[in-house]
């Protein structure tokens, strides 16, 4: 419509002559939307409960260390590797519950169609959603690690000296953070591509990770307990302690069965990055494996679901 007409019909339709971005602009705006959805912005108070709660869970432990370190001059150091081992389950809970939010409602409501008829491929769509969630997860994780770093330097005798000696931990925990967040982002998103209910996606992911931990534990832990059969026969437990017998159920294969605890796959790589003075049992066992094994295992657990996720969206008919 010409300028002259637009003046006559004040409320008339106006064509848009301004600048237009292409695919990059499309990906960018989808990324921003995903970021906001992840933290529950613009969706009312109830949508913010879970993201806030989950972030607090991840950040609470280092925040407690920080407070202890600030008030007590002789606080213990907390290793960056231990922080990941301890919070990986919380981080996983966070992403298992929130990440499906970015894919499933779009499919249920049919909004995916509107995205895919815009200058955006299925690949762009998935990458924008995925990377936005990854960013949030990474920010939460790194915030926790920064708290650990501050707590440790406060606990040290000389904060400045401590930082000079340990500054290499910063790139290490950033790299380890990327490793763990890529893991916890990709798997729930891949599961979310295959179910239309967010709750089932979350339950499936959590179940898979929660159940494999004790399974792997039973198979690999060195058990040094007294034999219970003695106790049952005598009825008196305490006095029946014989010589301590230690064994692993899977014997020499135990180091392989540690990998069954899929949720710890990224922390094995983290262990490789950090020099941990007090490694736990699982870390010691994994260290016996050729270094390529945990790397390949992690790769499979990320690339497999990632490929499935992309395949699912590329072959989706809309």
């Amino acid at each position: 419509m010409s300028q002259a007409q637009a003046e006559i019909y004040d409320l008339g339709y106006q064509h848009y002559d301004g600048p237009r971005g292409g695919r990059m602009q499309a990906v960018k705006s989808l990324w921003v939307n995903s970021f906001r959805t992840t933290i529950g912005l613009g969706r009312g108070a109830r949508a913010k409960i879970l993201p806030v709660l989950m972030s607090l869970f991840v950040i609470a432990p280092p925040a407690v260390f920080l407070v202890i370190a600030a008030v007590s001059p002789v606080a213990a150091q907390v290793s960056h590797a231990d922080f990941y081992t301890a919070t990986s389950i919380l981080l996983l809970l966070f992403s298992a519950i929130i990440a499906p939010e970015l894919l499933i409602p779009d499919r249920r409501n049919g909004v995916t169609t509107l995205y895919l008829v815009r200058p955006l491929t299925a690949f762009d769509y998935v990458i924008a959603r995925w990377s936005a969630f990854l960013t949030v997860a990474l920010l939460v994780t790194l915030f926790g690690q920064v708290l650990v770093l501050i707590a440790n330097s406060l606990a040290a005798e000389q904060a400045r000296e401590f930082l000079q000696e340990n500054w290499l931990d910063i790139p290490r925990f950033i790299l380890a953070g990327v490793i763990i967040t890529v893991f916890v982002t990709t798997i729930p998103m891949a599961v979310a591509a295959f179910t239309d209910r967010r709750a089932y996606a979350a339950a499936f992911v959590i179940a898979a990770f929660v159940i494999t931990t004790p399974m792997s534990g039973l198979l690999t832990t060195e058990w040094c307990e007294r034999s219970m059969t003695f106790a049952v026969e005598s009825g008196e437990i305490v006095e029946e302690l014989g010589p301590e017998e230690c064994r692993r159920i899977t014997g020499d294969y135990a180091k392989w069965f540690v990998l069954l605890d899929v949720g710890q796959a990224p922390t094995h790589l983290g262990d490789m990055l950090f020099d941990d003075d007090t490694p736990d049992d699982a870390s010691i066992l994994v260290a016996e494996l050729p270094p390529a094994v945990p790397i390949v295992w992690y790769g499979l657990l990320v690339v497999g679901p990632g490929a499935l996720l992309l395949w699912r969206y590329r072959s989706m008919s809309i």
Partner: protein
Amino acid sequence: MNQPLLEAHNLTKHYGQTIALHDVDMHVREGITGLLGPNGAGKSTAMKLFLGLLQPTAGSATVLGEKPYENITIRMRLGYMPEHDCLPDFMTASEFLSHMAQVSGIPAKHARTRAADMLRHVGLDEERYRHIKEYSTGMKQRVKLAQALVHDPVLVLLDEPTAGLDPGGREEMLQLVRRTGQEFGINIMLSSHLMGDVESTCDRIIVIEGGAIIEQGDVSEFTQETETFYIDVDDRRAEVIAALEARGIKARISGGAVVVRLHRDEQLDDIRDALVAAEARLRRLAPSRGELSDIFRRSTG
């Protein structure tokens, strides 16, 4: 613009063994074009090929001079309104439109203005800050149209825009479509299985059935050639049909009425005679302008 907006050459699409579209040639120029056909005729497939969502099995689909499957940036200039539900629950119409404009390439600051303008144009000015899940079906349909127009496309594809609307809502939607084409100057291709929709809105019609184009032309050509009449009688329909056929008029029963198609006005006298001969009591004799099934019947038989 001399080149056609949409062009298809020997366009063919197979889904495995199923042939959705076979050897289609199509040239769509400016204005409002109706893609008319029954469900499963290949209308949606044709639209998806023009949007570049599907790759042609053979032949080519061209939009604004580009092949959309190879160059998806052409979609910045295209709008699409799907037939099925496609709106988020927990977003306001204003937010949603602004977001969709940005995904189509409009920078954020312009997107907000365009979203507000567009909602005013489709008559949702007052409700724009309410969550979409609170909207009625008619309002949702208008948001669906608005999101297809918010980035000011050259051409917009509307897939069954009146599906699921009551008669009032349907008329409103068709009026909006007409305004979009005539006042906004946006070219439209709309698909429908209802002749009424197409007839009242479009300049040109492409009739498609079984994956092939069976007719195309201006709307007037379709509606003036023949006239269809409904004859309501108490009973004795079979006798009426026999009497009509004895006078050279083909008749069939549809919706409880006898339906005939007349080519000359004198044939009205034949109807009167046939009714008398059949001793049937006439309840109603009503003309109906072109009906979809008529067009198929005429084209195929």
